[in-house]
């Protein structure tokens, strides 16, 4: 098995790990971390698939690389948004313990 195929499978394993965390973790913050692991795995699988083209004699294919760079930045933005949401939820729970939110 070549290194590219091997890392493609590692990416698939990361997707599985992240998916497991998404299911079994209770706290939303832990789900965010697990989702990021899942996303990294998807990027690696994609990168390995792109690399196969290079092995097939097509030369370096920059399009998937550019897509992954875009994907990493967008994943970071989504994570920041999710973290801000979880922080705000924690703040609401602290201020009004046991009652409904009034905002």
């Amino acid at each position, binding site marked *: 098995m070549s290194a590219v195929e091997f890392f*493609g499978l590692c*990416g*698939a394993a990361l997707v599985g*790990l992240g998916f497991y965390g998404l299911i079994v973790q*209770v706290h939303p913050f832990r789900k965010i971390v697990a989702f990021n692991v899942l996303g990294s795995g998807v990027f690696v699988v994609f990168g390995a698939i792109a690399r196969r083209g290079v092995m*097939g004699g*097509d030369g370096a294919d920059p399009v998937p690389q*550019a897509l992954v760079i875009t994907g990493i930045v967008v994943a970071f933005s989504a994570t920041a948004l999710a*973290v801000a949401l979880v922080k705000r939820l924690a703040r609401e729970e602290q201020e009004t313990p046991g009652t409904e939110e009034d905002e």
Partner: protein
Amino acid sequence: MNVLTLALAILLLIAGAWAVVARSAFAAVSGFIVCGLLLAVVWLILGAPDVALTEAAIGGGLTGALLFGACGVLQDSSTVRNSRSVSLRIAGALLSLLVACGLGAAFLLLPEPAPGLGGEVRSSMAATGLENPVTAVLLTFRAWDTLLEKVVVLLALVGVWSFAPDSLWAGRPGVRYRLDPHVIFLAQVLCPIGIVVGVYLFWVGASAPGGAFQCATIFAALWVLVTMAGLADPLPVGRLVVRIAVVAGAVVFSGIGVAGFFWAGAFLAYPVEFAKPLILLIEAALTLSVAFTLGLLVAGSPARGEEP
């Protein structure tokens, strides 16, 4: 496949598993950062140095800073109740195993020869005046993606700001860090190096691995470091200068895109003789805006009044 490759893969999977199942949130984030840095090495092996730079700077750096910052705030609520029933854990593990195996099998069963766009990109490179094919794809062939990515990052920032309570609307984001001599020392050592590396990556991005996003990420990380040292405080997000800095990249990019209708006949098309200077202008505006936006995303929602 040699021993190092195998060791890298094992470490990567251990770090990934640790990020998912570790007991405390802090330990999980540590695992995630290790995972991000190892992934950067994987990207190098996969022949994508541009992605490796981005992954190291964002996956290992900025996301780590963001998640560690959240750990501090969420300390009370994140360590409690970590109990799913054993049957649900087993079912989840089986389902995840199925997903991973399915994905792995799909990957191994892909048709040969693999398709790709490398040839087309290479044959059209001359028109862009650039030598790094990844930068060429980001700023010419797939410029739409990059423009929309900038808008997504901007929308995420608007979303983060919107989570501020009414009383703190347009206030300063994040906590005020106290002056810490150790972090100050770190900032003093790293900032000059970081600025040189960032500008180098920006400039070399036209012909070698690097570019606007990598440079912007490094600048954002430096700014986060300076605020953590207590040397600077984020401006209130209601200030006009902050708003301008954040939207400048998207405005310049769309402006040049619309101008493309007049001088090259299509949205986001550049006249061949001015392609490179225009791309540099867009990259400069993007770097400024993305650096500000990423830094502000790490800082989070407004959490204090407008006074320092």
